[in-house]
């Protein structure tokens, strides 16, 4: 009898080993999550911190300068080597270089070492020596040199803005002329070219063109002249920089975006610099085939795509679930539909992409083009990838999640609430709309949350439905009709792939991959948090309902 009791209370009956195993499983999971996040943020977050510039003189006599990225043991040898980011890609070809630590004669941190951020060829590392204008030296390195340089750089940026504005003016003034040019070209190359009527028309158009050109005259030439003089001022100043190996390089000041002296910076200066860089990363366009600059268009594209997807996909999924749960007759066919919806979630996402390409882009988009954009054909407008089609494809991909969650939400609405509404004389639809749907809102939102997480991370189907590595314009801008759903867009997930694996400069792109991944995670979490907060508010309202 005693033995029996022991058996029931003992080691196995209490499930001690299983409790341990399940605890371990949670621990492993936690370790994976923390390790993953830790890796991403450790590698990504340091990217913008201004690292000290080391200058090493090698025993061979040559000199290398730049921040040390990492130090590792040389395989099969009792020595170490360090990776320097040497910059000056235009001079050295590569901007990273391994240096054997044994070959180093001495290592210093010269206070005047400067990092010059350029609009091309990445950073330049060296010592800024002088500012020249038209050959003559206007300022040399000295006490007031750096503030002056900063002012000049700001001036150059301002000049660029002015030139752009003036160019816009010219284009605007020329608009009627440009229209005539198109007409003339059409007449010259069109099917009726050469016929006497065409010649007559052509002559008339040409005359009209000349008259208009004369009339517009000043409106075009004034800004054109202004551009000319602005350009002259912009092109004049050049910067003289001595590289670590003694070479002296001269470059136009207009190519300089900013410069800083990391070895002179204190902690607060570095922190300020860091914040500026993070800000730039979030709000500016990419440069240098995406390895530098910001990711703003990718953030914008990702968020907007998810937004369109939710706006279109969620109501669709909710309506489908509503019909399935409330109106469709239970039976074989309904079960088949349920099975289909559940299994849709298991279809590889690239298949959805192919479907999107075939159905949305070629069939629907092509149809729209043939109906409404005939004048632009054969150049497609909607018949090519764009943010609308990508969003629709993802909506399709995530709709099963919404349907399943909504079905669960609907089933969880207490029968008492349904009967209560009916007993008060409401129709079935009134009951669904006023009582059942609001009650199942938290469940629906759970589905939307899952859909958002899934959609934000998808890349494969987007690659064939409208994502590109770089865009000139956002899908929303000030130009009519403001919302350009036909435009291609950038996406953070694709950006990571592109920067990490398609970049010509892999080493330079590496930190960018981590930083962008971190950012993508932050966005997923933020979008989720918004939905979760919304759900919690609703839960408070409907706390009586079984959720």
């Amino acid at each position, binding site marked *: 009898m005693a033995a029996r009791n022991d058996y029931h209370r003992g080691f196995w009956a209490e499930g001690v080993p299983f409790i341990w195993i399940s605890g371990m499983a949670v621990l492993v999971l936690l370790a994976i999550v923390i390790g993953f996040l830790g890796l991403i943020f450790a590698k990504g977050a340091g990217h913008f911190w201004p690292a000290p510039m080391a200058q090493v003189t090698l025993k061979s006599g040559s000199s290398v300068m730049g921040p040390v990225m990492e130090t590792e043991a040389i395989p099969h040898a009792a020595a170490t080597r360090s990776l320097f980011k040497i910059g000056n890609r235009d001079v050295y070809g590569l901007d990273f270089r391994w240096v054997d630590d044994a070959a180093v004669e001495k290592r210093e941190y010269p206070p005047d070492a400067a990092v010059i951020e350029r609009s091309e060829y990445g950073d330049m590392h060296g010592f800024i020596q002088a500012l020249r204008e038209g050959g003559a030296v206007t300022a040399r390195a000295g006490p007031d040199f750096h503030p002056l340089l900063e002012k000049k750089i700001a001036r150059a940026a301002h000049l660029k803005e002015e030139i752009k504005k003036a160019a816009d003016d010219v284009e605007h003034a020329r608009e009627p002329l440009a229209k005539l040019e198109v007409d003339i070209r059409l007449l010259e190359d069109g099917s009726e070219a050469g016929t006497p009527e065409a010649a007559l028309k052509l002559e008339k158009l040409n005359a009209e063109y000349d008259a208009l050109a004369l009339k517009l005259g000043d409106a075009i030439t004034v800004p054109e002249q202004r551009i000319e003089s602005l350009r002259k001022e912009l092109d004049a100043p050049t910067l003289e920089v001595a590289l670590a190996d003694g070479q002296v390089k001269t470059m136009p000041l207009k190519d300089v975006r900013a410069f800083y002296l990391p070895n002179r910076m204190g902690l607060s200066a570095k922190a300020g610099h860091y914040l500026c860089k993070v800000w730039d990363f979030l709000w500016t366009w990419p440069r240098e085939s995406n390895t530098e600059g910001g990711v703003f268009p990718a953030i914008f594209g990702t968020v907007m795509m998810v937004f369109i997807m939710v706006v279109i996909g969620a109501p669709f999924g909710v309506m489908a679930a509503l019909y399935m749960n409330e109106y469709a007759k239970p039976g074989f066919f309904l079960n088949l539909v349920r099975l289909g919806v559940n299994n849709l979630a298991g279809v590889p996402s690239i298949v959805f992409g192919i479907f999107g390409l075939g159905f949305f882009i070629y069939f629907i988009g092509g149809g729209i083009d043939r109906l409404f954009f005939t004048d632009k054909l054969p150049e497609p407008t909607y018949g090519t990838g764009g943010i609308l089609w990508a969003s629709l494809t993802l909506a399709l991909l995530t709709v099963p999640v919404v349907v399943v969650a909504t079905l669960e939400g609907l089933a969880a609405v*207490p029968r*008492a*609430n*349904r*009967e*209560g*509404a*009916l*007993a*008060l*004389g*409401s*129709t079935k639809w*009134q009951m669904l709309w*006023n*009582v059942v749907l*609001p*009650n199942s809102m938290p469940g629906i939102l759970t589905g939307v949350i899952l859909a958002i997480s899934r959609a934000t991370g998808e890349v494969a189907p987007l690659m064939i439905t409208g994502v590109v590595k770089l865009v000139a314009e956002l899908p929303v801008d000030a130009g009519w009709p403001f919302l350009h759903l036909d435009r291609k867009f950038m996406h953070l997930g694709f950006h990571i792939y592109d920067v990490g694996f398609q970049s010509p400069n892999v080493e330079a792109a590496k930190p960018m991959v981590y930083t962008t991944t971190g950012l993508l995670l932050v966005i997923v979490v933020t979008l989720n948090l918004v939905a979760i907060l919304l759900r919690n508010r609703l839960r408070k*309202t*409907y*706390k*009586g*309902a079984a959720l």
Partner: protein
Amino acid sequence: MDIPMTAPMDAAGDVAVHVRKLSFYYNQSQQALYDINMDIRRQKVTAFIGPSGCGKSTLLRCFNRMNDVILNTRMEGDILINGSDIYKEGVRLEALRKRVGMVFQRSNPFPMSIFDNIAFGPRMRGMKDKAVLGEIVERSLKQADLWKEVKDRLGKSALDLSGGQQQRLCIARTLANDPEIILMDEPASALDPISTAKIEETIQVLKEQYTIVIVTHNLQQAARCSDYTAFFYMGKLLEMNVTGRIFQKPSVKDTEDYITGKFG
């Protein structure tokens, strides 16, 4: 056995619900009610008693066709309300349920404000005028004896009310529809004695205006607040009479056994 199934009518206009040869089946063949005949009197309280599972709720739900919601049910016989057949083709369920209100065993306020709960019925029928709705809400809450307790918090969630208040809210919600008949399915069975007493008081006031049918497990309750009592047993109506008579001199043995607590 003298079962006054068709109690003699004082006058034709005295009968609110007229049940003729009613049989009811769940799942097509599982019979829950057998050949029920009864008349329910206008502006009186009629209590349905009987052991659980004997079909009281099923019959009650036939009166506002709530059983239509359940799949695979079948009904035979007729129910006439004010002389017209409610199972006739073309009867609008919404109109019927407005006239025949129902209060459920477990209070089921919607997760909305108190005001919105009460205004639900009128709103569903298209009433939008805020002033009129306000009047309806006030009147209904007063009738259900809840006005004093909630008049300052009409905008607050109805789910924050106590159980007894929630049930009176459900009564008020039904009253807002201005029904003729109110069906109550064990309205106090989940409530404490004080809340139960309040509901019973409310019923006493309401019967001046409405015809009330109440299902109850509580025999004292039936004795206290009903004018007529019907005793059901295994899907059959065994006896129906003036309440006093049922409790003092039941004519059926089973009724007596039930009332004296020999089973049930």
